[in-house]
């Protein structure tokens, strides 16, 4: 191709707004040209042309030429050519872009050719030549530093391709001879600062990498680091500070003692104070300084910790504490407290995790250890005081400097994160000084509330902060960690009537402010984190009523409903036995939630009803329990009937209909809340071990003697919500949210080990499932997402029934309690759910996934029941078809992969089941059909789905290795014949794959074999995932 055509193609390639196909075509042609034997000549010719794009392409062509003809060219000759090109480009003042590309080529060739320390390196040759022709001095300095940087970058890119010996040669031949010479000859100055720092940074990175990866001797860069440190000191230079920070971040051991000492001296000196003054309004620079201080201190934490007793270090700790206590609000006015927090967390953690090592540094001298503990406690006390102040809520609304809403939100988010980190520091400080920290915080609340007059904003902020931190500490307290002092402090806190006083603040303050809101919210959070206080001692038990009253009072306020209801639920769940006396109160509260259609969120209503159920669960008298449940269910039923009636009267009014819909939803959610609350609180095995007789009583009452027939009442409610037309309403259900709650209700019972008020027998649920299926079949289902979702729930429900029945049988064997043997009606259900709704299911990926998950579930529990189904071949063929048809649908493939793995391994199968599956796969030729579709899907699926195909192939390799080879060969014959993707898979590749696969016998090694086969046939590369 002639030069002019090439130039025209390059211009096409780089010209904007070109058609994609045109660019692709030009790119292909140019790539072809660049790979030709004489591409080096073309590269030279292109570099001679005036256009910058063409020149760059010329430099690029040298790269491609070199990469493609590495073994054919003489590297020394090629270096000479590149040197000539660079010198020529410099003389012609070509753009830096082109010169840098040529220098990068030179570095690449040097890396390949450098085998001998005695030879001159090309960079040296270049610089000497330029000196000999009296090249402009400033340009010469710039070029020296840039080329040094480019060489280091190229070395870092190729680091893994270079052997250790070669790295040694490069260090000696290039770094020691040339780079050091450059850095020494043109020392760091204001003029060359950026280039010089970039150059050193690149070499520092390369040297750090080879030091780690090849265990090469440390290269001493300290003379250069010293220059940078001095430059930073003299000019308060932020770029130098950045580089020093980076070295500390990557490899602090690169600094020698002298440099560290110098840094240590200046950091704790007036230099830092001056730097802060100079950068008073530059948060970014100040943040960089504090980041560096943190990195510097983090590099030697243990030693620093041991120096607490050293008097000469006192000023350093004072300095750090003062810096942390920098004037102003964190984030808004200062960032030191924010940036240094990481350091303090790590530092204080040393006193927990590494205390033995600190003692070792003190040579386990008892006197020193005592002094260390005393002094560290003092410092930490001071630190906790500083961060307690910094933890005070900021005034986000009155920040005049930041009017922008996004900025305010950003500051608030940052502050919330900062606060959370402070709580982490307090958790650590609490672990070191438990009694003191706890006592300080509780005292602070008591003292600030003790004033008789109206509280100031500051006092409110103090109380809020202490409550926030106390909540955080309380959350990590466990039963074993409770000290009598904590109980005493808590007792004093409750005796101070702090909850009443907090409510008074809220009520007295007409102008609702954000501090009050934070205060109330944190008081609620605190109350929900002190279960250890209520649960295990008499003092705590005494205050539960007071706590619940406080929480219920806050339930009236929309702002706190959610938190309060969560706290109430948590307390009633864990302290249910201690509040039996409140049953009537909770019953009233729960009823009010239903009758008054109280203006609360659905979840809040459900939580309160569940709280009532938690207490109700503890009643020993089953009849009384059942009576109360029955009253409550009747209440829900009657209110629901009333609501359904209103629907009929307001069919045209969408707003009223929406309100009623919400109310009905909350009623069915209340049923779920009741069922959840009445579940047995513990793991069934523990419960049975602890109360074997009680379990028998439970069984007898709920199985045979329940006078109030709770099960029937529940089913009546479920039917009302599922089929209102059967209750003389002129409409039917179509609300997937109702259905979701119905499933949740059944789930509560199906996951219970023993009979109970809400444990509906499996055969009744199966009847319900069949009724729903019949209903689905009557209506036009297409494009009705609500009903698709409902079918999905029905399939899921049947899966739960299978699991529950399976677990019941196991429990029956362990406890000798006779559970009913029921007919799972599998054939009928499969027919109703699957075959009669086949067309609907097959158009919805979620339904396909659900149905095959169900089959897979059945196979793992009752394989015989499914294998004896007369339509089993049909079911299996449908699943096999899906492997190819839906090979990109990850969740379908996952469910089918699980089904087939369960079928092939048949872990719960008896001999007759194994015979049956063998017959299906071998005699009925389903095995061949499976492998054909499996391979077809496999070669077309995405990389992220391969693992699920691999699972089936491994299972087949393990169990049907005798037939697999033949199945694979025949499958690929057919696939090649069909030529589906215009791609023929070579027979030798298939044979090699089979050979390697069978050798693995389906073990883990098969993963790699199958994966590599996928790479080979798809032409993809291994990303190392």
């Amino acid at each position, binding site marked *: 191709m002639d030069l002019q055509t090439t130039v025209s193609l390059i211009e096409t390639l780089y010209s904007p707004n070109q058609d994609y196909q045109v660019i*692709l075509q030009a790119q292909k042609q140019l790539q072809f040209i660049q790979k030709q034997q004489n591409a080096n000549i073309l590269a030279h010719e292109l570099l001679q042309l005036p256009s910058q794009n063409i020149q760059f392409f010329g430099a690029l062509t040298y790269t491609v030429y070199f990469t493609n003809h590495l073994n054919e060219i003489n590297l020394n000759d090629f270096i000479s050519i590149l040197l000539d090109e660079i010198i020529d480009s410099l003389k012609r003042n070509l753009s830096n872009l082109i010169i840098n590309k040529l220098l990068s080529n030179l570095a690449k060739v040097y890396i390949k050719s450098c085998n001998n320390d005695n030879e001159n390196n090309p960079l040296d040759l270049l610089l000497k030549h330029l000196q000999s022709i009296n090249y402009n001095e400033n340009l010469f300095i710039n070029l020296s530093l840039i080329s040094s940087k480019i060489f280091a*970058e190229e070395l*870092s*890119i190729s680091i893994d391709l270079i052997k250790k010996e070669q790295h040694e040669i490069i260090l000696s031949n290039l770094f020691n001879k040339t780079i050091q010479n450059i850095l020494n000859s043109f020392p760091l100055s204001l003029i060359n600062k950026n280039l010089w720092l*970039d150059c050193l*940074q*690149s070499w520092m*990175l390369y040297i*750090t*990498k080879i030091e*780690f*990866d090849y265990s090469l001797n440390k290269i001493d860069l300290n003379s250069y680091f010293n220059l940078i440190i001095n430059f930073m000191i003299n000019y308060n230079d932020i770029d130098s500070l950045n580089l020093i920070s980076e070295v500390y971040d*990557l490899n602090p051991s690169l600094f020698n003692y002298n440099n560290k000492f110098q840094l240590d001296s200046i950091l704790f000196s007036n230099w830092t104070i001056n730097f802060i003054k100079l950068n008073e309004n530059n948060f970014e620079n100040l943040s960089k300084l504090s980041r560096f201080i943190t990195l510097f201190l983090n590099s030697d934490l243990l030693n620093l910790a041991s120096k607490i007793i050293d008097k000469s270090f006192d000023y350093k700790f004072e300095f750090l504490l003062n810096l942390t206590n920098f004037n102003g609000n964190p984030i808004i006015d200062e960032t030191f407290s924010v940036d240094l927090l990481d350091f303090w967390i790590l530092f204080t953690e040393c006193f927990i995790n590494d205390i033995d090592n600190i003692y070792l540094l003190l040579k386990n001298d008892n006197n020193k250890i005592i002094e260390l503990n005393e002094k560290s406690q003092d410092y930490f006390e001071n630190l906790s005081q500083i961060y307690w102040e910094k933890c005070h809520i900021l005034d986000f609304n009155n920040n005049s400097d930041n009017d922008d809403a996004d900025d305010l939100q950003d500051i608030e*988010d940052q502050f919330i*994160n900062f606060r*959370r980190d402070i709580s982490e520091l307090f958790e650590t400080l609490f672990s070191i000084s438990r009694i003191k920290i706890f006592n300080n915080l509780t005292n602070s609340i008591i003292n600030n509330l003790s004033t008789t007059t109206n509280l100031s904003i500051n006092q409110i902020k103090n109380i809020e902060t202490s409550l926030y931190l106390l909540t955080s500490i309380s*959350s*990590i307290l466990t039963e074993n960690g409770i000290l009598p002092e904590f109980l005493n402090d808590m007792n004093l806190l409750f005796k101070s009537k702090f909850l009443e006083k907090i409510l008074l603040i809220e009520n007295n303050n007409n102008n609702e402010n954000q501090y009050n809101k934070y205060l109330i919210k944190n008081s609620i*959070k605190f109350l929900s984190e002190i279960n250890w206080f209520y649960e295990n001692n008499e003092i705590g038990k005494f205050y539960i009523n007071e706590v619940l009253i406080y929480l219920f009072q806050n339930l009236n306020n929309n702002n706190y409903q959610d*938190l309060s209801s*969560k706290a109430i639920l948590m307390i009633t769940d864990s302290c249910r036995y201690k509040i039996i006396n409140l049953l009537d109160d909770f019953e009233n509260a729960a009823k009010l939630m239903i009758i008054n259609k109280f203006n609360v969120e659905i979840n809040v209503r459900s939580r309160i009803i569940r709280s009532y159920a938690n207490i109700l669960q503890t009643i020993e008298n089953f009849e009384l329990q059942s009576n109360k449940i029955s009253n409550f269910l009747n209440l829900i039923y009657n209110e629901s009937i009333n609501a359904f009636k209103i629907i009929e009267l307001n069919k045209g009014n969408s707003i009223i209909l929406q309100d009623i819909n919400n109310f009905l939803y909350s009623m069915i959610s209340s049923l779920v809340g009741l069922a959840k609350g009445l579940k047995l609180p513990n793991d069934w095995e523990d419960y049975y071990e602890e109360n074997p007789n009680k379990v028998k009583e439970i069984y007898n009452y709920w199985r045979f003697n329940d006078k109030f027939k709770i099960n029937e009442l529940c089913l009546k409610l479920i039917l009302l919500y599922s089929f209102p037309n059967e209750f003389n309403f002129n409409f039917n259900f179509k609300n997937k949210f109702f259905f979701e709650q119905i499933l949740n209700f059944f789930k509560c019972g199906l996951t219970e080990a023993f009979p109970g008020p809400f444990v509906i027998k499996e055969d009744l649920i199966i009847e319900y499932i069949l009724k729903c299926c019949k209903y689905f079949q009557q209506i036009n289902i297409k494009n009705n997402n609500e009903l698709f979702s409902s079918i999905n729930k029905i399939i899921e429900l049947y899966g739960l029934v299978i699991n529950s029945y399976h677990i019941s049988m196991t429990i029956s064997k362990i406890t000798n309690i006779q559970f009913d043997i029921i007919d799972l009606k599998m054939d009928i259900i499969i027919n109703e759910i699957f075959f009669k709704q086949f067309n609907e299911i097959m158009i919805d990926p979620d339904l396909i996934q659900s149905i095959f998950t169900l089959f897979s579930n059945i196979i793992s529990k009752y394989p015989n029941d499914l294998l004896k189904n007369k339509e089993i071949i049909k079911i299996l063929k449908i699943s096999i078809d899906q492997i190819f048809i839906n090979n990109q649908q990850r969740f379908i493939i996952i469910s089918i992969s699980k089904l087939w793995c369960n079928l092939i391994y048949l872990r719960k199968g008896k001999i007759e089941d194994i015979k049956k599956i063998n017959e299906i796969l071998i005699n009925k030729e389903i095995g061949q059909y499976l492998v054909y579709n499996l391979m077809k899907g496999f070669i077309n699926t*995405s*990389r*992220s789905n391969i693992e699920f195909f691999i699972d089936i192939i491994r299972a087949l390799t393990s169990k049907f290795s005798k037939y697999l080879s033949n199945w694979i060969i025949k499958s690929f014959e057919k696939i090649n014949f069909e030529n589906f993707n215009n791609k023929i898979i070579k027979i030798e590749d298939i044979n090699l794959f089979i050979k390697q696969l069978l050798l693995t016998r389906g073990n883990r090694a098969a993963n790699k074999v199958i994966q590599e086969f996928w790479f080979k046939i*798809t*032409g*993809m*590369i291994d*990303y*190392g*995932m």
Partner: protein
Amino acid sequence: MNGPSYYEFYRRSTVGATLADALDTLIVDQRIQPQLAMKVLANFDRVTSDHLRSDVRAKMTFKGHLSTYRFCDDVWTFVIKDVNMKLDDNEVLDVGKFKIVACNSKKSGE
């Protein structure tokens, strides 16, 4: 400037696997070369790691029963059962099994 090398394990995350699938499609369509795909994934490793370190502030605390733990090839693995997780904003999650894989934040060479 070339930075340190990064772990590749985020490639197995949902977003990483999806990116790999997308790159495969581009390769099949001959819109990019495999080498570029590798570069993109290397960038993904770097960006994911850096952003998780610098930008992600979310925290989670948990309580549970430590079932298994091991330290092999500089990688800690903890399997925890019956876990109660507390997320930011007091959201609580209960999970049966929970696996933590923890590597040194500074990979060799970094």
